[in-house]
């Protein structure tokens, strides 16, 4: 008997780049992608603008940006030559689930041209970080040096547009540190865990070393080690195991750009779109959220994201922290582990968000819970979790609820 996904989707077109093999004029991998995409669009009559899911072996955010698309499903599975069969499998599931209507599975790899352009022995595939990448040509020459040097531009624009100040955002660092003092595993828990650990003030945040004005050091997250994992199962199993289930009520994803050059509004992220999808799936809204786990690579990331998630009006995200609502004992606890700012941030912080959300909603955040990790338990039964990637580029939102 066929499975539920059987015939839930179909491949409707297939095309290649204009020249393949040994092109007369060497090509780039990006060019090969775009030629094939344009050709399959022409072949099927499906406009590129109708594509709402992108699947590629690592290129998806760059391809979507190049096409000016904001896809609702972004897959970069890259596990070798079989990746594309897997992409079709993943697209089938996403279409069956009603998340997307049109999936683009794309590949471009200048295996020959890379050698032709750069000499033998340098035939690496051209991809992100390549000297021909737009960012390498049009951002890197200007001394940009990682996340802080980019995100600072968003703070400046937010201050300009809404009349906010860096001091307003400093409250996010101060309140997040309060949570860290309740989590013995947080780097900044106390003077015993770090020489600069323990409670901090707005003045201390503002007078710490300038990294990228208007961001001082204490507006920026930590750089640490981390390992984490979660298990997701079907309801029958979730009901039968000894741990408490935390239900995925809603999920959504989106992106606005890859390189900050393409960030249209420096005071907004695609979390508005990804959370709209997640809230709709959940049949819930921001008013139903009893806590939030918000990626806080920088204070400005958390402040803007709170606005995007509908937890505060535009321009006023920081007030959740400044007015104490996000603090221990407040009406909407945010980043109860101490956040990327004061708990732990390993470069990609999305797993830390998930682990803390599970611990809070399963009621196991306190000492002695079967999670085995100490912390501060809140009363929340629902949580919006939002991860932000790149340079305020990509977002994934989950609405999680307990029984």
């Amino acid at each position, binding site marked *: 008997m066929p499975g539920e996904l059987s015939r839930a989707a179909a491949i409707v077109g297939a095309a290649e780049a204009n020249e393949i093999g040994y092109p*007369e004029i060497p090509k780039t991998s990006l060019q090969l992608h775009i*030629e094939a995409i344009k050709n399959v669009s022409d072949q099927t009559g499906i406009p590129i603008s109708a594509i709402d899911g992108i699947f590629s072996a690592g290129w998806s955010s760059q391809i979507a940006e*190049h096409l000016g698309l904001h896809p609702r499903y972004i897959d970069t599975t890259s596990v070798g030559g079989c990746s594309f069969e897997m992409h079709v499998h993943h697209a089938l599931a996403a279409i069956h689930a009603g998340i997307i209507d049109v999936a683009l599975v794309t590949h471009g790899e200048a295996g020959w041209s890379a050698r032709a352009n750069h000499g033998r022995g340098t035939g690496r595939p051209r991809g992100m970080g390549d000297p*021909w990448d737009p960012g390498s*040509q049009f951002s*890197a020459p200007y001394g*940009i*040096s990682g996340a802080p040097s980019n995100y600072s531009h968003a703070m*400046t624009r937010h201050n300009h547009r809404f009349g906010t100040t860096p001091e307003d955002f400093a409250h996010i660092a101060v309140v997040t540190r309060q949570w860290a003092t309740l989590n013995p595993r947080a780097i900044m828990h106390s003077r015993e865990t770090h020489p600069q650990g323990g409670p901090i003030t707005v003045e201390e945040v503002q007078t710490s070393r300038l990294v990228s004005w208007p961001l001082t050091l204490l507006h920026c997250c930590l750089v640490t080690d981390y390992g984490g994992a979660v298990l997701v199962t079907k309801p029958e199993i979730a009901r039968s195991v000894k741990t408490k289930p935390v239900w995925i009520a809603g999920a959504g994803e989106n992106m606005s750009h890859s390189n900050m050059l393409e960030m249209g509004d*420096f005071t907004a992220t695609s979390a508005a779109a990804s959370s709209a999808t997640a809230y709709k799936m959940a049949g819930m809204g921001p008013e139903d959220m009893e806590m939030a786990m918000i990626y806080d690579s920088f204070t400005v990331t958390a402040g803007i994201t709170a606005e995007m998630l509908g937890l505060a009006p535009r321009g006023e995200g920081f007030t959740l922290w400044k007015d104490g609502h996000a603090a221990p004992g407040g009406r909407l606890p945010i980043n109860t582990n101490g956040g990327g700012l004061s708990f732990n941030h390993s470069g990609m912080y999305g797993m830390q968000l998930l682990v803390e959300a599970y611990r809070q909603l399963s009621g196991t955040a306190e000492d002695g819970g079967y999670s085995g990790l100490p912390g501060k338990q809140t009363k929340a039964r629902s949580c919006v979790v939002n991860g932000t990637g790149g340079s305020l580029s990509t977002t994934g939102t989950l609405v999680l609820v307990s029984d």
Partner: protein
Amino acid sequence: MTGARGIRSVTVAYPQFADSARRGVPCVSAPFRRRQSLAYNKPIPEPDPLSRPFWDGAKAGKLMLPRCTDCNRVHWYPRWICPFCHSRNIEWFEGSGEGRIHTFAVQHRAFGGWADEVPFVTAYIDINEGDRMFTVLRGVDPSKPETIQIGARVRVEFEPASEDVHIPFWRVI
């Protein structure tokens, strides 16, 4: 010309590799390497086939921009396809070289050659033709960011980084 394993190698003078062709350098065997001049110790962009008209223009003191001939919109950075209407009919034209500051930051930490220049002011520029470029601002005081105005008018200028590559910087006017 046939090389090892019967693979056809190519030594034609590609338009985008005109400089290497002029020197008689075969494109297959010679790496298209970055040339770092002694005077300029910061990253030098490496033009690619798509962006070559921009860098050729920069060397001649012109801000060349890509424009879709179907929807007439200007996009930045250079694309293989128009990001607005998905046409592949794209032309290059000379822009006004003027714009306004969209947002900025003052970099107090940098790496490589830029480390010697801190603090310096980076900015996103809304170009008059309608998209946005990134730059290091000239004509501003990094120690007084409060004196730098979002919306201030700027004009492009080109600084030679190597014999072939001149980099656009924007100056407050």
